């Protein structure tokens, strides 16, 4: 049912989905464990890439192009997010030296 015939080999859609789940979990762990703000942004990019893999895998499974279009949109949003996030980080680093996201906790209640 969920088997894909790719170049004569039989691959299963769920393998791609499982790999995407593993990559997404790795990104989540990175966001939780790492303390460098740039590395946290990198881990968010990893999570977005895992979601893109899910979209393209379902697109191939249903043989429907809309999943790939949505993956392209997600890439655009990821690029915009990276640009604005890095600009904010550069602005913060210009004012003071931050080596830990916990240094930026003045706004907490």
């Amino acid at each position, binding site marked *: 049912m969920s088997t894909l015939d790719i170049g004569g080999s039989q691959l299963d859609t769920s393998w791609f989905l499982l*790999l995407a789940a*593993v990559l997404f979990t790795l990104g*989540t762990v990175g966001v939780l464990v790492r303390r460098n703000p740039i590395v946290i942004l990198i881990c968010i990019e990893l999570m977005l890439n895992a979601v893109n893999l899910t979209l393209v895998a379902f697109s*191939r499974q249903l043989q429907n192009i809309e999943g790939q279009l949505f993956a392209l949109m997600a890439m655009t949003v990821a690029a915009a997010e990276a640009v604005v996030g890095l600009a904010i980080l550069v602005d913060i680093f210009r004012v003071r030296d931050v080596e*830990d996201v916990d240094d930026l906790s003045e706004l907490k209640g």
Partner: protein
Amino acid sequence: MALAVFFVAAAMAVAGGVGVISFREPIRCVLSLVVVMIALSILFLLLSAQFVFVVQIIVYAGAVMVLFLFVIALLGPARETARGRLRFQPWLSALFALVFLGLLFTMLQGVQYRQPDKADLSVFGTVQSIGVGLFTQYLYPFELTSILLLTAAIGAIYLSRKETDDR
């Protein structure tokens, strides 16, 4: 053949993902993420998404990662040396990861795969089919995306400009 390609690319992607979260220097994290993206682009090619493959290489592994490298080079190679404030944070996040992965795995067991609509795979994922989809049915989201990119560019310029007195 495709089976071997899948497993090699999957192993590359997982190894790169582990590298992203375990290297101390941010520059190595970025290079590990480039490995993940190249492995994922190989998987996109397996899934007959040629255009997404090219965009992934050029835009992601090219432009976005070079941007990250520039910013790290600009801010200096900050190593993570200080210990975090929460002593149990690694163990708590490991527990969270196990639970989250179990949740996702359980969800994947319950996916009902619908039979495909039998599209023509020889044109599936080419520039032509992507372009037809993007400029007919999805023209409105496409234009909204261009506005989003313009907004991000203006915001980045505003945030990273030099402080002057006459503002």
